[in-house]
């Protein structure tokens, strides 16, 4: 089995699993339907094309919480185009300042296609909601061989420099992974309705999916190996 890892980082993200009508909530970690939907969009799979969606939805999914972020409530108004009168108010919830590593396990050919598609997407990827573009390219790497949990134990900690500084002087950090349950765990696992069946606009459908929480211990990267595109590391040292 191969594993594709993704980095989901941006000022705002929003991953709804049960949001309806005027209250649009977010889960505290990316949903499977959100991530699969993003990959399907990148690969150019149209909304109603359930046949092409099926192999993506069948991938095994897990997500590691590298930086949990904070919850943000946004108050949204709209006005009538002509009369100027207010339309129903809505509340939208976001995760601010969060970083996740999502992993998908499955067929190598399919994962290779998805990995390429993220670099040259048909539809622009976003983090759960269109107004939430990623702050860095999403694709991390494609591991030709491996199991999802093993890979999530290896991928370096992706949290921002300012966040990592809050955990000084430790050589390991413990992170939470939310993954799909094995067969033996089926009955004890949590469930969440985010297994995508169809993204067709007329009848969007999701099935229940199991979710198990596992801690993983990641080596804390030495200061020098921080991501090279973070030029401000030196700036904030004493104030953080």
């Amino acid at each position, binding site marked *: 089995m191969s594993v594709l890892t993704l980095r989901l980082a941006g000022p705002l993200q929003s991953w709804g699993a049960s949001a309806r009508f005027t209250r649009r909530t977010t889960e505290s970690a990316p949903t499977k339907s959100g991530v699969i939907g993003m990959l399907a969009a990148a690969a150019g799979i149209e909304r109603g094309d359930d046949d092409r969606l099926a192999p993506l939805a069948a991938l095994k999914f897990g997500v590691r919480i590298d930086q949990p972020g904070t919850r943000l409530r946004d108050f949204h108004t709209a006005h009538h185009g002509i009369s100027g009168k207010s339309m129903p108010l809505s509340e939208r919830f976001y995760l601010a300042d969060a970083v996740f590593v999502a992993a998908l396990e499955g067929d190598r050919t399919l994962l290779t296609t998805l990995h390429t598609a993220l670099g040259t997407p048909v539809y622009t990827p976003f983090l759960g909601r269109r107004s939430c*573009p990623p702050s860095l390219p999403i694709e991390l790497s494609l591991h030709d061989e491996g199991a999802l949990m093993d890979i999530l134990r290896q991928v370096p900690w992706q949290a921002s420099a300012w966040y990592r500084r809050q955990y000084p002087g430790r050589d390991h950090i413990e992170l939470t992974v939310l993954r799909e349950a094995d067969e033996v765990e089926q009955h004890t696992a949590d469930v969440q309705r985010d297994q995508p069946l169809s993204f067709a606009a007329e009848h969007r459908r999701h099935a229940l999916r199991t979710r198990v929480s596992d801690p993983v211990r990641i080596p804390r990267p030495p200061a020098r190996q921080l991501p090279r595109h973070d*030029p401000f590391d030196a700036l904030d040292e004493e104030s953080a």
Partner: protein
Amino acid sequence: MNRIFLDVHALQTVPPSNLNRDDTGAPKTAVYGGVPRARVSSQAWKRATRTYFKREQLLDTSELGVRTKKIVEAVADRVTALDPSLAGETALRIADATVNAAGLKTEVPKRKADAAKEGEPAPAPEAKYLVFLSARQLDALARLAVDGMADITAFLKEKKNKDRARELADSRHSVDIALFGRMVADAPDINVDAAVQVAHAISVNRVENESDYFTAVDDEITDAETGAGMIGTVDFNSATLYRYAAVNVHQLAATLGQGLREDEPRTDPVRRAVEAFVHGFVASLPTGKINTFGHHTLPDAVIVKLRTTRPVSFVAAFEAPVRGETGGHVREASERLAEYIPDIERAYGDEDSTLTWVLRVGPNTQKLAGVGTESQSIGELVAAVGQAVAQRLEKPA
């Protein structure tokens, strides 16, 4: 398939202001990089952009859509224009039937229906929600209604005509519908996916909201009375905002279709849409409390990139907040971007196929001069971007 993306980045400073407020009246905020920032929601800036199209006449009215519940009246007006013998109730009736055949459910608002019982003229049905239709779609629906005026019910029962109504509502989209999308709750098959992604603008610097306590004097007050005529507070902040939007040009081209006029190149509709968007997005400003604060500003720096790979936001350059120790935030923000852009593009590849333009003002943005071709004015920038987009579209996939 040819992938064409355009991303627009802008640094814009606003003085004490309240562009976009939450339900408590305070300017919106978000935490980023662990510190509070000013935030202006994407929907606020999209509305400002759409308004700008109209106000500055960047696009012809025929290329714009109208977002309204009064869609039946809009079609009926056009029916009357096509055939003056069809007016009043007749026009409304055939317009309503056609609009419903297109999948847009309408009803007479209860409040107006009650009024009608007391001898008022019969009210027009309205859609239950705001519907976004282009001028060309309204024209086409009106023509269909006129075609079937003899017996509109029988006419629209025919599958051919019913399908035609749906098709009319789903083709020849206006530029703003193609850019910002359309969502119809009970006719999802005629939804349009937006080609534009606008991020929430956030400040590059740490921002905490402040509160202005004010008193207003009563001009007619007598000596016998004391105190202010009224007191209150207004929340505000000031910020240097990083603004970002990405246009999926190949998707926009698919939604808009090719040019309909014989005498123009087939890439013209997309070029005009892209030019209008870049101009409108850069120059527009949400007007929240604008008469209180007069925060009319324009961006100090604009960077536009045309790519064949996915668009990239540069917001991470400001994850550590800009301190502005040398006075103001624009200089340090520009230095950060000038360092960050080549760095991230080297790390993730494809600088070769990326075209970059810069529009900048003043010595504080000097460092950005090197990141792309400098434009002297917004007009020059927009024209150069439009031309490059048309060239990319012409290239075979």
